[in-house]
């Protein structure tokens, strides 16, 4: 039976398997750092506006310490975020192998996601407003079922993104 063939195939020592953790990953375009930082500026601005609106509405019953403390906490978080984006950027990267696609990111919490080609449901290239301004695209990879297992490679030049997309699509159609 086909099943047995497959199982006999699996007498492979784990150490002989191609390890994913030591591969050289492709880095993202360094412009993407700016995209991330600008989006943090937007978040900071929104948070500050939200806070001041809140204080404005609740007219004057808020102690001074809160009035100064909360915005400065926001600013500290913002600065930390900028630093983290800067330091964490070299950790971000993607990897295409013969059989799967991976994306890794995260300085404090490192995360590496790998999707085998024969489990990809569809692939899509997209960009948000800030990315559009910088001429960057992202490739999104979807699997079946919930959206938890999806993978998204940001910070790519549009040409590269479309190349990756068509590469993935060609691999996916081979498995159909």
């Amino acid at each position, binding site marked *: 039976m086909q099943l047995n063939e497959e199982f006999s195939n*699996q007498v492979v020592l*784990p150490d002989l*398997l191609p390890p994913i953790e030591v591969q050289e990953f492709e880095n993202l375009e360094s412009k993407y750092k700016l995209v991330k930082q600008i989006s943090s500026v937007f978040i900071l601005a929104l948070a500050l506006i939200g806070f001041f609106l809140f204080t404005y509405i609740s007219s004057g019953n808020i102690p001074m310490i809160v009035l100064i403390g909360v915005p400065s906490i926001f600013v500290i978080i913002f600065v930390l975020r900028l630093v983290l984006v800067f330091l964490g950027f070299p950790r971000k990267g993607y990897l295409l192998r013969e*059989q799967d696609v991976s994306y890794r990111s995260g300085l404090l919490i490192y*995360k590496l996601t790998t999707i085998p080609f024969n489990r990809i449901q569809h692939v899509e290239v997209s960009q948000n407003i800030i990315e559009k301004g910088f001429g960057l695209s992202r490739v999104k990879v979807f*699997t*079946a*079922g*919930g959206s938890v297992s999806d993978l998204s490679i940001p910070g790519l030049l549009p040409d590269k993104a479309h190349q990756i997309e068509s590469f993935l699509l060609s691999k996916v159609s081979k498995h159909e």
Partner: protein
Amino acid sequence: MSKPDLTKPTRQELRGFLVILVFEVQKKIRAFWPILILIFAQKNLLPSSITIPMVLGILLLLLIVHAILFYLNFYFYIDDNQFIIKKGYIRKKVLSIPLERIQSVNTKQNLLQRLLNVYSLEVDTAGSAGKELKIYSLSGSYTDHLTQFLQSHKGNADDHKSDLISNINEEVEILKLSHTDLLRIGISQNHLKTGLIILAFGSQIVGQIQDLFEEETDAYSDSFQNIFSNSSILFYAGLAIFAIVVSILATLLFTVVKYYDFKLIKIEQSYRITAGLFNKRKVLLPFSKVQQLNWETGPIKKMFGIFKISFKQAVSKQIQQKQVVDAPGCLKQNIEIIRDELFNGDLPDNSEKIYSHRRYFNLLWLLMGWLPAVIPIALYIFEPLWIIAGGSWLILSGLYCWKMVSKSYFQFNKSQLIVGKGAINTVWQQSESFKTQSVDFRQSFFQKRRGLASLRVNNASGHIDIPYIQEDVANKLMNYLLYHVETSNKKWM
């Protein structure tokens, strides 16, 4: 009984017209309720000659006409390996689903449908379309034939078809719940949750009553109020007992309604589950469509020696609600049979159990113990008594987290993965390696220092977490799982 011709375009059963009407009315109300509310709230906007009953009458008339047209234009049939639904009278719509894309076919019967002796049928594909693939009114024999055909006809079924028909009646009963089983299941449910909800709700009501009395008693005498507040501890104790009793009764009732006449039957390579007191549901579950099997037991369940099994299927993106089919009240041997059948007997039970590292405790306690304890810090300053509450929370959550860590492990035997977890309850999750869709490797700064990492194995029905294992073990397992998926050419969905 003659076999219905499935390839002929068929309308729904006429005697279930009322069901169609009710479902369509529900749909329209759900879509247009803001307008309805507007009409009711702003009565004066209407011309004086038109009254609310008139509006309702016209709406009902329109809906009846709509339902008639809906009924007349709704056809379904099977053509060339596709299941086709045609519907719509203004906007015509043809939905065609390739048979091999069908994940599951479920039959349901609510009270009204039972009175009219019709069934509704839902076809689930793990893709789009979602709820559109629902037929409200079908006769019993047609439902059976259609279900059987759709299920048996996944993809390359042509050559198996003849076997299937000859074996069709070979049904093996695996589990059947009697009334005493239902009683046991009801008692062993999680009453704490229901109890707490009732308690929170109840204490609010009591608070309101007290407020009420405080106002009222000013006018009369204080005696009643004194009695009331003196006995308030007693009152709360009584309320707690009342809450427990009510929650036990409520869960019992819920269990009976949901699992009445529960049967788990094996037919060929699939299970059929039937259950329900008012709403009868019937689920057909091919083995190959089960993505993950969970089974669990708790302290009370353990006393009765029963487990609850959940079959997890692929989730449709649009519905987002998990396709879980439960079988409560399983005995140990039931689970063994089911696992043996679902996973072809190659179980990793004897391979080494690799437990999560003790450091997992730090993370859990931080999130579940310290964080909730530290957040109300202002409370401790103003009301030092709360420190006792905070302290005991820390101790209790510490014990709970410790239990969680000690129960967290995984077993792996190349083709399959079992993960154990839980604190008060014990839960096991099992999934076949080749059904994995993607793998996440996670490592926090603290984990990296200790050479630890966590894995998340995603499949079409959700994910299995393996927290805090050695970094090299995690890497090995990840590479192994990927290798498995990439070399497998079996259908995983």
